[in-house]
């Protein structure tokens, strides 16, 4: 035993520094769900501050957009990693894309419904028969589950990003992200006390949102790289929360680069709300997908008929344990 131990030490001293220096950084791409904004501050900061590089990953961030579906990018090999809503990932997995979660960033749902007080809507039952603006499929899971549970019928209208139709009175309520569109409405001059809000996180439909995903194959081939990507991202978020002004600058720079509207107060609000839903009461981002959250999301998806098949927690989740 002693001899073997000595030998290991000698081996470690001789080989490790050499291997760390000589091995070239592994290249990888991370595709985001949407255009550059503070929702992704942690990844931008991690890249900018070298938190991926120092873990041996040369990560390129692929900006998202209206025409970018991360699951397609990953499936088709245009990117190794991607951020996705948990519900979207479960659905894709159910549909046969071999995605695994290597770390859950956002622990809480930021999805909400917003109505104008002046419209006479004060409680959920008032939504009966209302025209409600919604985005694509992955944002409809929670609302549809809610309406089914309440037994009310609503008129779903595909909504555009501008919220113009809602503002002009063409919709009774809209779905919004707390960190994004809710502030957009405020920036249109609506005061918070003029709006009625329904948070899904408070309606027993609290689905964790952004997580980092890759193909099972990628995980099997290089789990160290996957862990490096997650840990770099978590460090990025920690840094962003500790230095919000610097993080904002980084985000705004990315936005200008991507030529999207860059509004500082809007991004400041978004970063602050991201902190709320990522930490969810914890002192630091944990990156863990809790089994309870997974099972609740999966059960809702199955019982509402969004999917017919779903993976097991162990198959699906490869991230750190609690």
């Amino acid at each position, binding site marked *: 035993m002693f001899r073997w131990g000595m030998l290991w030490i000698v081996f470690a001293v001789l080989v490790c520094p050499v291997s760390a220096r000589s091995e070239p950084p592994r290249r990888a791409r991370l595709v985001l769900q949407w255009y550059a904004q503070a929702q992704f501050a942690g990844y931008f900061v991690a890249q900018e501050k070298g938190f991926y590089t120092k873990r041996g990953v040369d990560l390129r961030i692929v900006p998202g957009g*209206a*025409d970018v579906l991360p699951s397609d990018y990953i499936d088709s090999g245009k990117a190794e990693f991607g951020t996705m809503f948990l519900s979207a990932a479960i659905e894709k997995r159910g549909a046969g894309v071999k995605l695994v979660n290597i770390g859950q960033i956002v622990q809480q749902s930021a999805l909400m419904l917003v109505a104008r007080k002046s419209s006479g809507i004060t409680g959920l039952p008032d939504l009966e028969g209302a025209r409600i603006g919604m985005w694509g499929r992955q944002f409809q899971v929670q609302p549809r589950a809610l309406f089914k549970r309440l037994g009310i019928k609503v008129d779903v*209208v*595909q*909504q*555009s990003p*501008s919220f*113009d*139709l809602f*503002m*002009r*009175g*063409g*919709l009774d309520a809209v779905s919004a992200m707390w960190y994004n569109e809710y502030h957009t409405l*405020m*920036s*249109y*001059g609506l*005061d918070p006390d003029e709006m009625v809000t329904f948070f899904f996180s408070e309606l027993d439909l609290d689905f964790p949102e952004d997580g980092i995903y890759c193909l099972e194959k990628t995980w099997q081939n290089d789990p160290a790289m996957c862990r490096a990507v997650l840990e770099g991202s978590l460090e990025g978020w920690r840094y962003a929360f500790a230095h919000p002004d610097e993080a904002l600058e980084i985000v705004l720079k990315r936005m200008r680069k991507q*030529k999207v*509207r*860059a*509004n*500082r*107060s*809007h991004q*400041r609000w978004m970063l602050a709300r991201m902190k709320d839903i990522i930490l969810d009461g914890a002192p630091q981002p944990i990156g863990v997908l809790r089994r309870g959250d997974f099972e609740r999301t999966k059960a809702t998806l199955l019982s509402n008929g969004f999917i017919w098949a779903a993976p097991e927690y162990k198959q699906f989740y490869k991230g750190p344990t609690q």
Partner: protein
Amino acid sequence: MKRTGIAVRLAVLILACSLVILTGIVWYNYVVSRNIIISQDEHTGAGLAQATSARISKVLYAVQKVADSIAYTLEDAEISPKLIDDLGRRVLAGNPEIFGTAIAFEPYSFDPARLYFAPYHYRSQNRIASTNLGSRDYRYFHMDWYQLAKELDKAIWTEPYYDEGGGHALMCTYSVPFYRQVDGKRTFAGVVTADIDLTWLQSMISEVDVYDSGHVFLLSRYGTFISSPNPDLIMNETIFTWAEERGVPELRDVGRAMVQGKSGYRELKDLPGVGDVFLYYMPLPAENWSLAIVFPKDEMLAGVTHLSHTVAIIGLAGFLALAALVIFISGGITRPLRKLTVVANRVASGDLDQKVPEIRTRDEVGELATSFKTMKTSLKEYIANLTTATAERERIESELRIAREIQMGILPKLFPPFPERSEFDVYASIEPAKEVGGDLYDFFFVDDRHFCFLVGDVSGKGVPAAFFMAVTKTLLKVVAERGLDPGPILSKVNADLAAENESCMFVTLFLAIVDIETGETRYANAGHNPPVFLRKGSEPEWVPPLNEPVAGVMEDMEYSTKTMRMEPGDSLFIYTDGVTEAMDGDRNMYSDPRLLELLGTLGAVPAQELVTAVDVSIKAFTGGAEQSDDITMLAMQFHGPLGTNKES
């Protein structure tokens, strides 16, 4: 305490008042002119905003008309791709302000095989290009320009946006829904659009001059900056995010008023990068946009501030001139007063020979100087008179004193007067008042057996009383020595006194003659206080009054004589009203009862002891208060022919 001169007080008061008035004028002038400028600029702002808004609306209205007429045309035209292509090209050729135009159809409504059908004509490198919108990545049914017109069922202007294809221009789209007859029903069939480039609008607005640093900005219906001198704001910020970022909550209120289509004029303090401003805003109702004109307060009020400075400087110069004048005038008024004061102080310390300064002014100070001069002369004369009068009075007083001494000198003062006589004992005293009075007493032997004694009191005071008293005393002695009875003596004396008495003076007299062998005492009384008879072993009693008048008034008066008998040891106490009317500090009189009571306690004491005891009692009563009348007392104790009483 330090004295403050009239000149200084006058100057300070006048100047302080002037300063207050001056400040008030400058302030009022500033406020009024400022308000005039502010209200003028409100009108300027309104005019400017209306002119700008009219220019914008004119262009936008023209675009609306074009799109509206296409939509109208599409309603019942036989639509073919050729027709649509021609329409698009004609519109762009004829309307240079329109950048592009699309006719977007509902899914499958133009061609049941096509989900998307939206021919789009646009300008590209000086020619007209066309394409067909709609794809899996561009589902135009959910774009604002399509969805808003469809869902709201009316023509709309979209929010401005950046053109992603072209030269990154700021665009805005006007969309009109159009309808077709389907199975006899008017059904929504799609949307006609006209895109315009807003660059012309931005440059037009940026050319509007508002002072040097003022500007105009244009907000979209949700407060997004469409035009602003700060390019970072355009399309990136709404007025609300800007208010939040810069921490100006008032700006959010303004923004809400603006997006609600109100017009207004208000002051904003400390706007970041601009400072204090006045903001005029008004809506562009067709597009729900809002135009605001920013007047920098500093520049707006520069003229007023300059005017106020000038007014203040002129005022200050006037104030300084006024100050010099006030100091000069008040000095001129008070200089002669100061000179007079110096002289007056010297006069006050007794130097009446000071020369009064010549003051020729014909005002109150001149009058004062003249009065002062007169006063000084009068004072000098008065003092000279006073000195003479005082010397005169001193001489008279000295003579009076001598007269008094002579008067007193004629009264017998040597006691015992008859040491060889043992049959009686007599004692008298006179306490002169401050003024010369007219009390008198006397005693003498008429013959060997008869001893006469008397007390009198002349009316009035002063030298006449003294003379009258001397005359009376002399007369009494002369008449009494003739051996008459007391009544005839008084009658004779009265007659003599009254004969030459033109000044109507009178005298009260009590005169008694005692037979020293027998003790028989004959007496007469001319209006004098009743004496007290102290009978040995009995209570003292008044000698009964005879009720006969005072002497010296009526020539023909006859006085009667009464007789009483004194036993050895008996005493007779005669006094003037100075005794019973002696006053203490509270002006209470010594009074008859007090006298009688005192005498009752004494018993048969020698004459001198009797008089001394009464004197002590009076002094104790008055407590040393000065008396206005002479106090005269005479006591006679009868001892009997052989001086029995004296020996016993």
